[in-house]
């Protein structure tokens, strides 16, 4: 081979040719990362429930569910460069479908959640297929508009409570049925563990994509769509793939929420929550999936923490606004120093 390389610094290549895998997968750093993840999982599954009350375990359950939505939103933002402001609508849609299915069928809980997630994915793709031709601010706006429109419908339709008809609504509260939980996770502590494991599984699903061929294609699209096309990447397919994956993860979260709160209100899905979500996602950091967990904790646990110490939970809203602003200021300053204009 006629290497133009003018010096013998080809050692890395030579090592690479003999090594079995890419050094990024089996290096010391990745083993250390896996160790940290395993330790964190152990703490999350066993230590946290052991030292806290039912109240906090319920909040941690909410945090783990939100972490799935945040992980999906962060993946779209950090890996593909798409800012979705309507994720809470898909989340609510899936909660609604799960509840409706649970009253209509005798399917086991995981099947309910999976079916709801798949239907949610289909809805996400139907919107995404035309919308993904848009980019930047326009894509964000169409997702936000969809979420606002969905909220109007949800506020009227409300969540099913075991009644008849398509809406599954019954007026007399006495007859109201509740969403069932899986047999192995009836209690709040067991359900918490169930949710954490589901969260880890969805994160693994995302991780498999991110380190593989789709992840490289996404990185390419994020950098420049034109360059990605020139590299032979079918950008429409890969963007839609990311979109579908995020919808699916959000759908899983919606199903888990149905089991968590059993008879949900509209509040978790109001427009504000979409803005809060993007704020906590930016605060948590979009490059790593750990950011998703931080985001979930911020959104679900922080307001409760404020109330516990006697401060209005409304302060969390201010904190999210400040967090988003500070984060933008820091990244803008860094870009400025590097002389980069977006």
């Amino acid at each position: 081979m006629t290497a133009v390389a003018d010096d013998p610094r080809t050692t890395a290549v030579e090592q690479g040719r003999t090594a079995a895998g890419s050094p990024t997968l089996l290096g010391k750093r990745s083993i250390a990362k896996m160790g940290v993840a395993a330790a964190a999982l152990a703490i999350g599954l066993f230590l946290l429930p052991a030292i806290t009350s039912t109240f906090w375990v319920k909040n941690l359950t909410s945090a783990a569910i939100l972490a799935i939505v945040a992980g999906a939103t962060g993946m779209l933002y950090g890996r593909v460069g798409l800012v979705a402001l309507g994720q809470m609508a898909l989340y609510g849609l899936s909660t609604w479908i799960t509840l409706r299915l649970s009253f209509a069928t005798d399917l086991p809980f995981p099947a309910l959640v999976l079916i709801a997630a798949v239907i949610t994915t289909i809805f996400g793709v139907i919107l995404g297929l035309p919308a993904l031709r848009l980019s930047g601010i326009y894509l964000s706006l169409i997702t936000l508009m969809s979420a606002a429109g969905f909220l109007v419908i949800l506020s009227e339709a409300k969540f099913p409570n075991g009644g008849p008809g398509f809406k599954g609504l019954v007026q007399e509260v006495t007859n109201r049925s509740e969403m069932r939980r899986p047999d192995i996770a009836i209690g709040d502590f067991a359900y918490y563990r169930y949710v954490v494991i589901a969260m880890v599984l969805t994160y693994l699903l995302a991780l498999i994509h991110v380190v593989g061929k789709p992840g490289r294609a996404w990185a390419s699209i994020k950098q420049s769509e034109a360059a990605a096309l020139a590299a032979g990447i079918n950008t429409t397919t890969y963007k839609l793939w990311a979109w579908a994956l995020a919808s699916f993860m959000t759908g899983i979260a919606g199903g888990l929420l149905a089991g968590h709160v059993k008879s949900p209100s509209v509040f978790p899905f109001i427009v504000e929550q979409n803005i809060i979500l993007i704020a906590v996602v930016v605060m948590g950091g979009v490059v790593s999936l750990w950011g998703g967990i931080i985001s979930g904790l911020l959104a679900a646990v922080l307001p409760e923490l404020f109330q516990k110490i006697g401060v209005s939970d409304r302060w969390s809203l201010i904190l999210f606004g400040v967090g988003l602003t500070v984060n933008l200021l820091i990244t803008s300053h860094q870009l400025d120093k590097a002389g980069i204009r977006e």
Partner: protein
Amino acid sequence: MIGISNLTVRFGGVLSLAGVTVDFPGGACGLIGPNGAGKTTFFNVLSGFVVPVEGSVDADGVDLLAMPDFKRARWGVRRTFQTEQAIESLTVFDNVRTVLEHTSKHGKDSARTQVLDAVEFCGLGAQVYARVGTLSPRERRLVEVARAVVGSPKLILLDEPGAGLPEAESEHLGTVIRQIPDHVGATVILVEHDMSLVRKCCDWTAVLDFGRLLSCGPTEDVLRDPTVLAAYLGQEVEA
């Protein structure tokens, strides 16, 4: 050989390319012209980003314009951009691998060998697992060249690869570009303002001015052509 005939591109009322007919004979070819002559538009047509109102592109007997943009890379069109576009968040290896895995099918080992060959060809052997974000401008340009030569490209479009590099560095880049046709057997079209780089790499050169073909032929003849010199008047030709 890349045969272009009567290629016309219109943006609003402005003719960016006005019936350009030219045959690129193969090897490394230069494409020069003053700013706004239509060079990048020409590349955009070949990559499928801009649809011409008229004209045809015959690449080794294949009608290039009939192919969707991302499929052209599979056929063998590669391109770099004026602003460097190597993917910052990925390693050099993954950058090159991304192009290969979307343009051709290979077994894992054969893909690995091809990627490493391309990286080595560009002299980036020592940085193969470095993240592109940590590399120097020269190295990033070389990553782009490696992305362009991996697999079996047939037509490589390089849009000002030397822009912003000091002379010594673009010298090395020129050596790499010069060897591409022999190494991978592709036709290279090089858009460049740096005439010394064009001289060094290209035996054959075409000149565009205001969307029209001004001159074409062996590089030395073209650069001595009085009409070409007139077009560059005010923009000094580095002879």
